[in-house]
């Protein structure tokens, strides 16, 4: 027992460094996914036919492939063929971000479409152009409605991020398995990894909940 606590105690700083990598990866990928996903949703609702078609193909592609296939395709395929010197971490951010954008776009599309047509009509009647109306009237409402659905993206991304182990991103699981194979004590090490993941999950959801309360207004509960 002493040995095990000793191993965990020694491994902890090393694993926590991995937690920092994991959280940076998750936050960056979610942010990247948001930046790409929101315009995709707007394009899918308000764009012309060919814009909609291109976005549909994008969404179909990134939702249709397993994460691992995407990671290999980009990291060992696209990035190495084109000679781009992109690190495993950055590749992971790009791939998880682009994939998340596809999922996020559907969350935003749903909430944009749930805003009544009258809102846009009232904005037009006041002389607002479509861009201003979408930005000032539709999005502030749609984004509020998106928060609960979007909250799913965080734990999904967090758990998914461990798969970047496969391309050597030094996140929690990569480091965990390194120690596990060195010490032959997989159980305590992987349990520690699990606790770290659960803690990160709890922390993130708590913050999203605070965000939800902060933006809560009557009529959007």
């Amino acid at each position, binding site marked *: 027992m002493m040995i095990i606590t000793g191993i965990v105690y020694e491994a902890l700083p090393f694993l926590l460094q991995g937690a920092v990598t994991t959280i940076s990866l998750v936050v960056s990928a979610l942010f990247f996914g948001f930046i790409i996903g929101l315009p995709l949703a707007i394009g899918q609702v308000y764009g012309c036919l060919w814009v909609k078609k291109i976005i549909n193909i994008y969404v179909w592609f990134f939702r249709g492939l397993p994460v691992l296939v995407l990671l290999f395709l980009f990291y060992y395929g696209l990035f190495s063929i084109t000679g781009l010197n992109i690190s495993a971490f950055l590749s992971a951010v790009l791939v998880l971000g682009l994939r998340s954008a596809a999922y996020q776009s559907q969350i935003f599309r749903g909430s944009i479409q749930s805003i009544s047509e009258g*809102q846009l009509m009232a904005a037009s009647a*006041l002389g*607002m152009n479509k861009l201003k109306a979408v930005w000032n009237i539709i999005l502030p409402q749609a984004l509020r409605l998106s928060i609960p659905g979007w909250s799913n993206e965080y734990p999904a991304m967090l758990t998914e991020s461990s798969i970047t182990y496969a391309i050597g991103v030094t996140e929690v699981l990569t480091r965990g398995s390194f120690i596990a194979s060195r010490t032959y004590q997989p159980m305590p090490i992987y349990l520690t990894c699990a606790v770290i993941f659960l803690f990160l999950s709890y922390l993130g959801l708590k913050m999203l909940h605070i965000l939800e309360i902060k933006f809560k207004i009557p009529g959007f509960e």
Partner: protein
Amino acid sequence: MEQNKELILEIKDIHKSYNGKAVLKGISFNVFKGETKVIIGPSGMGKSTLLRCINQLTVPDKGSVWLKGQEITHRDAKNINKLRQKIGFVFQDFNLFDHLTAVGNVEIALIKVKGMKKQEARNKAIFELKKVGLEKQASLYPAELSGGQKQRVSIARAFAMEPEIMLFDEPTSALDPELIGEVLSVMKELANEGVTMIVVSHEMGFAQTVADEILFLDGGKLLEAGPPEKIFCEPKYKRTKKFLSTLNELYGNVEGNKR
């Protein structure tokens, strides 16, 4: 009408069909400054469509609309937005911006469309809310307002843009009976101030006291038009008479209400 008054709105031969079904079959009339026109007629006969054709929320198939000598129809998006600022529109179901407070609803277009400074817009918005008796509710969200209050905010929102003309699309039809009065009295006040307006409504009492002219729309055409006394007491057509008597059954005797 009084021809010496300034011509505000000209509607010329408006046609509109939906899926091959003609809703408007050539509507023409003029609105002069300070006039209140009330459009009545059976539902589903294109009253709302006509109103929406005026500010191009619905694009008519044929015909033209002119605001103070400027054509509104056949415009590109940029120009139509400019012209829409001069036409206040009040919707049947309010369409208040649900994420903004009452004052936010009134000031947003002042800031984003007219380019007013925030403080200036706020002052103007509060002024307009006072006019409709809602300065105390300025910081409430639409979800916290009653239907009548919502509609008064929406009137203030449209009126804050200082339009040349106000269009009301059945402004009281979505309201509980006890809330209709507060909205009508705001509208009456506007009419008495000399605001030019077109109102689609079945509130006969309102029509009788403030309308300069009543237009009876039936079968996609303007069947008859005239001052309230004439339309209510001696309508030319059987259709008009029949429609009015249906309203009488619903709302009580129109002539009996006459003061």
